[in-house]
Every structure is written in C-alpha cells, then in structure tokens.
C-alpha cells in the first residue's frame, strides 16, 4: 500500500461545510421537523424543592380546549420500566429508584409532575395551569450541611440518607513522608459553584409511533443516537430494532444532551398511546431550571510544600452536590482523583470523596466535567507562590514534569507520555513578558489601579494515554463510494458544534484521494450510522483515526478493483481528485463514478473479486495521548465597582497535529468564553430553602461578545506518538483551565489588599467583599 498521501486538506483551515446552511438560517433543528398530525407536549413542574404529592386533580385539564391526553406519574408507571435516564446510563448505579414523572414526591423545583399533550404548545400550557396538585412540604435539602445532617429526611428513601456515595481513603505515594518532609502545609477549602450547560438550542424531542408497523421514529437533539435509542428501548420495553433515532442539526450541548431524559421518555410513551407524533421543545425556563446543572463541589485540601516551592503532596476530601436524580456526579471523584496531579511532580496524594443528594437539578456532564481538579490545583499553586512570595510562573516551572525525565506518570498512575505543559509554559513566557508586566503592575498600583496576571496549565485526556490504562474503546466507521463516485462517511460521532462534517471529510479526502467537496459525512441516524457518541474530547483521535484507517482500507479495495480494470499493478496506481490512474499515464485516468459503474457491470470482473465498494472498520485509538497547555489572563479590577476587564488573554496549547486550525481556535475560544462566564457571570443559584433563583436570562447571565476578550492562540504541534494518528481533541480544554486562569489573575490584581481567593464565582459584589471594601452579607 502506498503511504505517501498528499496532505491537501488536513492542516488547513478549510471553510466549514456546516457554515453555509447554519449561518444563513438554513440549519434544521428538531423544532423545524414537522410531521402530519403532530401534537405538542408541555409539562407541569413542581414549584417546590421537596414535597409529598398528596393528590393530583387533572380533570379540568383533560376537558380543556385542544387537549388530547394528560398523564400523571401514576398513569405512566404501568407503561414505563425502571432504569437509567440521561447520562446515568453510563454510570452503573442501581440506586436510587425513581419514576419517570414524579409520583410519591417532588425532589426539585422543576421536577416534572404531569404531561399534557394538546393540539398546540399554547393550549398545552393553558391546560397545565388547570391541574391542581396538593403538596405537603418536606424539609428541603439545599446545602452541603443539610445533606450531611442525618436528622433530615432522605430525598430517596432507598438510600436511607442523603449520602449517595462515600469512598474509602485512597493513598498514592508516600503521603506521610511528604508531609513530614514539608516546610509548610497549606490548608484550604476551595469551592466551585453550580453553573450549567446553556446550549443555544434547548432540548428537543419528537416521537412518532406507527401502530401498524409497531415502529417508533424519534427526532432528538443529542450527542449520540444509539444512547438515546437504548434508553428508549429499555424504558418503553421496545426491542431496539423497532426504534429509529434521528437528529437534525444540534445547536450545542456541552454534555447535556446524552441519552434520553425522563421528559423525553414520557413524550415517547404518549406518542405510542396515541399513535400520533408528539413534539416537546424545552423552553429556556425549563432548560435553566431542570435540564441539568454541574460543577457544584468543594475540595478540602492540605498541600505540603517546601521553602523552595516544591509541592510534595496533597491530602484531599472532595464533596459533591449531585442534585436530585442520578446524573454523572457519582463518577466524578474517581476522575478528579486520577487527574489531580496533572503534569506536576506531586509525589503523594491522599484522596477520599463524599457525594451528596440535594433538592436541586441533576448534576450532568458539562464541558470538562472533572475540571475542578485543574481549578483546585492551579489555585493551590498560586496560593503557595503567594505564601512564599515567589512568582507563580516560577513555581509552575519548578514543579512541572520534563519529557524524558522521571516521573513519566502521575502518582495516580496515569502516563504523561507526550505531555508538553513545560513547553507551553515556555512558549507563554516568550509571548507574555512577565517581568515587564510586573513593572507596569507596580506603576499602576501607585496610581490606584489594580492590574493582575494569572497563569494556569492543564492537560485533558484526548482520548487519554494507552499505557497503564484500560483500552480506549473502539471507534467504528463505515465508508462507501456511491454511484457518482462520491465518498460517503458514516460516523457514530454526533456533532453539535465540533465540525465533524468538515474535519472528517478533510481526513477522508486526503487519505482516499477525492476532493473535499466529494465527501459527505453522514451523522445522526440510528438506521445508518454505527454506534458511537461525541464527548470527552475523544473524537479527534478516535474518529480522526477511524476516518484515516477506513479511508485507507476502502482505497486499497478500490486500487485492487482498479488494477483489474486498468490492467495494471496496484503499486502503479494512484487515486487523485476523484480519478484512478496509472502513475505517469494521465490518459489512463478513470473517474471514480466510471469505476463504480464498471465494477457493477456483469462479467466485467472475475467472479472471485469482491466488488462491494464499502468498508466497515474500527479504530482503537492508537497510542492515545493528551492535549494540554497554558492560559494567561491580564485583567484590571476596578476596586470601586468590583468590575473586571480583560486587557489580554493568551493561549498556548498543544492538541497534536491540527486537522483544521480554525476549528481548533473556535473550540478554544468557546471554552474560554464559558470560563469567563463561570467566573464573572454564570451561577445556577438556589437559596437555602432550595428555591431556584436563576430561571431567566436576567438572572443567569451568559457572556456576550462584549464580555469575552480577544483571545490570542498559539499552537505547539507536539511530538508524534503514533505513526499516523496524532490528532488530539481540544473540545474541553478552554473551559477546564480558563476559570483558574481568570481567578488567578483577579487574585494577583488584589494581592496588595491581602486578598486570597478560595472560590470560583466572583461577581462584582463578591470582589469588593474580598477586597474589604464592602461588608459581606
């Protein structure tokens, strides 16, 4: 096989295939799908965080104009089998038990209590107001303390308490030795606040059950059609081949749209009962209140360090607020524990965790779900620097691993092969003149202006190292040549902003030898695409590798056929620009469409030749690997108003070989924007009684283009670990490291006021409290 491939598309900022339709308003989302006879669903949701349902009277709603069906939780019990919803499908949790819609009690503000299906969404919402529910208040569990108090009622009876999971103490390395050797120990509780995925497109779901065919067609906004299919099959008791799940364009997700939710299963059940299509489009109020939230946890940290700034070891207790229903919280501590040392020579770690149930929205995956490891570690590094009066950058350079030297793995066992955090720090120091900034900062302080510089580093498993790990999984892909000689790529990836239609086509076009325009990437249809899902920054390596190897396999097959048709040796053939030819003999060229036709002509080829122009393949992730890098923010804090402005934001990152630099930069920028939001604007706030306070965009503030700084990005294209596949994902990194970067910069600005920051959310009022200007409430 020829391995010389002209790299025409990979590495270039090829304009996105998705853009023309999406940017001109031609994108098609679930809400744009309209089926004949379609009905509309709306949900009655609990106004209380924790209450018994004494009775539900839906009789007036059933009689209301345009109403076709009303289901309470009890009505649905007989139709739905217990089991996981959403991302908890991946978690293997057998407890707690709960129902599709609330039956005995409600467990958060927004808990779905009843479903109304009507001729229009307006009429469905009108009818919702006619349902009379008699609630009996229960003590709300809305804080860590309330959840840990054994005298409070359990939110789920079968758990017996509000502790969902508690780990043993895990010890890595010589923890006692590290603390004995240390000159100092920093003890601190570092908080991360609840915030959430706010995709531009909310959740959307359309179920259409055909009674005659006993077949359920579903349109759903999701990150992987087969995950949704398996939940629907399981909860509805249908065999998987009776269900087809399709997606339209997906307007963002960030981890939210995984599997099928309780609401979606209820809607599917209604469609099955009615034999008509039923659509449910979550509104923004529901999205903010009840679709899922993330990030609420704290880490109690003791960090042992030397006079010279060596961080010797850490003792950590992680406590997570998992919200009410099972999401991904139970899986978090293990991820955080494994990642906490990151690219630093932290030689000892003691870790334990407690996961709590509360009357809040379910803890779901949100871009870099384990990111608290980076926030806490990078805060600790800066706090240590401040205690020692050292430059935080110098502490990082002291502690960061060097390639080719021990240690080559984290003390928690994960290999650091190919990690280039040190190089990204060096690049940052070349890009940002830190000593010059310090001089400017000093001069500004003399004028009463508070400038700060913050740096933070991270790595993300993209898809993660192979060494010392369980297998990376298999990414499946199919490719075929159609009658026009175009290359069809079937992937289980479900793009929701990642640009797979472009990036996978770039790889396939280069490897196969067709024009980019002649590749069509097919996604989002369980009848057509192999199983898979998009998440965890895995797809650059996994789907990129699958595209590369599958295109090669199909190319080999086509060359074989071409050898027969052109009566030449395979080694003399090439495929370029959609035509196969004998090298050096342009007149021999045969277009791929012509080849397809010739192959199908009876008698043209010997019997024994495989003439199917299709390949199904899978890719195991090769050597795997990490992405990572360093971010730097320069901010100014107005100590009269507490408002923060950015002067500069710089990213030096390494995601290996860039498939499409513009797409990579877009991922970095989007992640940083969410980090800006997390620190300065976004908080899914509850009061101590469990009332949700941030249910509109006047309360839950998203960063706009006016709030996000210009982001300067430079790429380190790393050391290849694999002969072919060195693309690594970058989807989560921006969001993982930006919060630490920005908080580090704010603390640096306020350092002359003696400020130490142990939290992530810093609205202006909080900044002035920390600065001692305003009394805390």
């Amino acid at each position, binding site marked *: 096989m020829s391995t010389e491939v002209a790299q025409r598309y990979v590495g270039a900022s090829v304009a996105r295939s998705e853009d023309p339709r999406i940017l001109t308003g031609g994108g098609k989302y679930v809400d744009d799908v309209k089926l004949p006879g379609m009905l509309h669903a709306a949900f009655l949701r609990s106004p209380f965080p924790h209450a018994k349902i004494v009775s539900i009277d839906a009789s007036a709603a059933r009689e209301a104009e345009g109403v076709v069906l009303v289901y309470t939780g009890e009505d649905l019990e007989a139709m739905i089998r217990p089991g996981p919803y959403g991302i908890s499908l991946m978690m293997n949790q057998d407890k707690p038990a709960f129902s599709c819609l609330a039956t005995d009690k409600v467990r958060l503000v927004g808990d779905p209590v009843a479903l109304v299906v009507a001729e229009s969404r307006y009429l469905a919402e009108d009818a919702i107001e006619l349902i009379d529910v008699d609630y009996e208040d229960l003590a709300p569990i809305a804080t860590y303390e309330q959840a840990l108090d054994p005298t409070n009622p359990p939110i789920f009876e079968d758990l017996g308490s509000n502790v969902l999971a508690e780990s043993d103490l895990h010890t890595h390395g010589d923890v006692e030795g590290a603390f004995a050797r240390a000159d100092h120990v920093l003890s601190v509780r570092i908080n991360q606040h609840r915030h959430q995925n706010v995709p531009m497109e909310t959740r959307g779901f359309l179920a259409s059950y055909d009674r005659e065919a006993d077949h359920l067609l579903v349109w759903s906004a999701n990150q992987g059609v087969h995950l949704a299919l398996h939940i629907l099959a399981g909860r509805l008791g249908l065999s998987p081949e009776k269900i087809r799940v399709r997606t339209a364009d997906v307007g963002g997700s960030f981890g939210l749209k995984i599997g099928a939710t309780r609401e979606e299963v209820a809607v599917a059940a209604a469609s099955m009962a009615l034999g008509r299509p039923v659509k449910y489009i979550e509104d923004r109020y529901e999205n903010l209140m009840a679709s899922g939230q993330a990030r609420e946890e704290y880490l109690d940290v003791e960090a042992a360090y030397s006079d010279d700034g060596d961080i010797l070891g850490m003792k950590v207790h992680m406590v997570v607020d998992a919200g009410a229903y099972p999401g991904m919280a139970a899986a978090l501590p293990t991820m955080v524990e494994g990642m906490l040392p990151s690219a630093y020579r932290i030689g000892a770690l003691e870790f334990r965790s407690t996961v709590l149930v509360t009357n809040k929205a379910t803890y779901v995956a949100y871009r870099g779900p384990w990111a608290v490891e980076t926030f806490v570690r990078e805060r600790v590094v800066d706090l240590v620097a401040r205690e020692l009066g050292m430059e935080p950058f110098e502490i990082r350079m002291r502690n960061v691993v060097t390639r080719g030297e021990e240690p080559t793995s984290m003390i928690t066992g994960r290999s650091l092969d190919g990690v280039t955090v040190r190089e990204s720090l060096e690049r940052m120091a070349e890009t940002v003149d830190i000593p010059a900034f310090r001089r400017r900062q000093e001069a500004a302080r003399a004028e009463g202006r508070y400038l700060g510089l913050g740096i933070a580093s991270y790595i993300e498993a993209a898809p993660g190292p192979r060494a010392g790990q369980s297998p990376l999984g298999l990414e499946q892909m199919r490719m075929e040549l159609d009658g026009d000689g175009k290359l069809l790529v079937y992937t289980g990836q479900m793009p929701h902003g990642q640009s797979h239609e472009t990036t996978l086509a770039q790889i396939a076009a280069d490897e196969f030898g067709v024009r980019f325009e002649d590749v069509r990437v097919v996604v989002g249809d369980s009848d057509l695409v192999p199983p898979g899902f998009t998440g965890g920054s895995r797809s650059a390596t996994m789907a990129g590798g699958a595209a590369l190897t599958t295109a090669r396999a199909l190319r080999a097959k086509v060359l074989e056929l071409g050898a027969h048709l052109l009566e030449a040796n395979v080694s003399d053939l090439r495929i370029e620009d959609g035509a196969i030819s004998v090298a050096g003999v342009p007149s021999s060229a045969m277009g791929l469409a012509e080849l397809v036709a010739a192959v199908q002509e009876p008698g043209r080829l010997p019997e024994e030749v495989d003439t199917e122009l299709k390949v199904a393949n899978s890719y195991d992730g090769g050597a795997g690997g990490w992405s990572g890098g360093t971010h730097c923010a320069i901010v100014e804090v107005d100590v009269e108003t507490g408002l923060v402005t950015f002067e500069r934001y710089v990213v030096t990152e390494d995601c290996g070989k860039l498939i499409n630099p513009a797409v990579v930069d877009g991922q970095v920028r989007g992640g940083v924007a969410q980090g800006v939001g997390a620190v300065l604007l976004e908080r899914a706030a509850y009061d101590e009684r469990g009332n949700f*306070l941030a249910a509109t965009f006047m309360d839950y503030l998203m960063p706009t283009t006016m709030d996000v700084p210009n982001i300067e990005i430079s790429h380190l294209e790393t050391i290849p670990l694999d002969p072919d596949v060195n693309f690594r994902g970058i989807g989560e990194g921006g969001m993982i490291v930006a919060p630490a970067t920005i908080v580090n910069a704010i603390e640096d600005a306020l350092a002359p006021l003696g400020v130490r920051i142990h939290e992530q959310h810093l609205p202006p009022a909080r900044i002035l*409290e920390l600065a001692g200007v305003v009394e805390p409430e």
Partner: protein
Amino acid sequence: MALLAEHGDDAKLLAGGQSLVPLLALRLASPSVLIDLGSVPGLDYIRGDDGHLAIGAMTRERTVERSDLVKSSVPLLSEAMPLIGHLAIRNRGTLGGSTAHADPSAEIPAVAVALDAQVTATSSKRGERTIPASQFFQGFFTTALEPDEALTQVRFPVAGPGTGVAFEEATRRHGDFAMVAAAAAVRIDDGRIGDARIVTIGVSDVPVRCREAEQALIGVEPLASAFEEPSSLAASACDPPSDLHGTSAYRKHLIRVLVRRALEKSTRRPKEQT
C-alpha cells in the same frame, strides 16, 4: 382609547413590546385584550414646546438617542439613551412604553424624575391630564395611570445654560439593567453650583431623587473634594434590595461611587453640554 375604556384592567397597551412581550412569554402577564399602539398615528414626535421638549409616547428610543434636538435641549436624556439595553431593543422600545412600564432600574424614568418632567395621561372619558414625574412612579411597575388611561407624551424641561449632565451606570454586562445608576444634572452659576439634580435607580421600587445631596451642593465650588459628602448622603438616603446581582451593602457602596463619578463628570463639562 375606547377599547381601553371598555376593557380597563383586562387590557394591556402594547408599544415596542420590549418588556410586555417577555412577560407574556413567561406567562407573568395574561391580559385578555392586547391593544397594539403601533398603528396609532400622531404619537411619534419630538418638538419644542414652551421651554420644554415634548416627546410622543411612541417615539422609538433609538430616535430619541439620535436626535440632535434632544442632545441640545435635554442632554441628560441623550446621555441615558445608549445605556438602555442593546441597539435592537432601542430600535423597538419606546420612550412612553419604558416610562409607563416603570421598571425601577430603567433609565428614562430616572431622567424624568431628575428633571421634573411631566407625563401626559389621556383617557377617552376625561381627556388629558398632566402628572408630575415625581408623582407618576408609585412602586415596582406601578404608576399613577388609571386603568382607562394611556401615557401619550412626556415633557422634559430644556436645560439652562451652564448645565452639565452625566449618567453613570454599573452593569454586570454591556446592555444589562443597571445594578445601580446615578443621573446628575448640575448647573454652574459664576463658578458655584446653582442647581443640582441627582437621581439613583436600582436602589428602591422607584427612581430615588436625592434631595439632601442636592441641597448640600448648592453654592458649593465644584471641586472633587466637595462631592464626597453629597455622595454619602445619597447612599444613606436608600436601603437598596439584595439580589443575585448585588447585595444591599454593595449597592449602597455603588450609589456613593456612582453619584460621585456623576458629579465629577457633570461639573467637568457644563460647557460642552450646552
């Protein structure tokens, strides 16, 4: 007006729809009758009127913002307009709609109260009456309008010579409602402050006129050092609410900072404003 008289409390007037439509979408308002003022003629004007500038209720905020007449006659209003929401909002939103909606964080009511503007209310039965801005705003989203009355005009006094203005806001993001804002219009006569008008918003259920602070400024030389005490007086006159965007103590602090900044700015530039 007949429709309004007939339906009274059951009806809502729809002007630019920048506040009412979101309330309808959230089902916080569900009037049985919606009266669209969009096609009512004669409510879209800006004209001089006996030492005042009269602005028709349906004049778009963007029109007010871009009006040279407003800029030269009522500079405080000009100064406030770009701070209202975003461009798309100001293209639809109207001066009368914002005034009648009476959001306690809205800019136009602040200007109206600061300048002692006059609000014209019209009903089909009783004709027109004039309500001073100081009496018009009665609480959160509550005004002196009767159920059968529509706000048809707001009249702002024309600024006298030597008047400087400033509108200082602290917002979480560009275009948000202010956590706190301070409006100031200060007239300098012979090097000393002859008249001062200060209003803060986001601090109570209505725009708050800071009369003690105003008094303290009369006859004072406009030096930075002279503004500390009036700013503190303005802050102590209020007991602002706490919410997600800022605690009461923070807002009180902001009043002091923003009133001081507004006074510094307005007294720096009386010349350029007149």
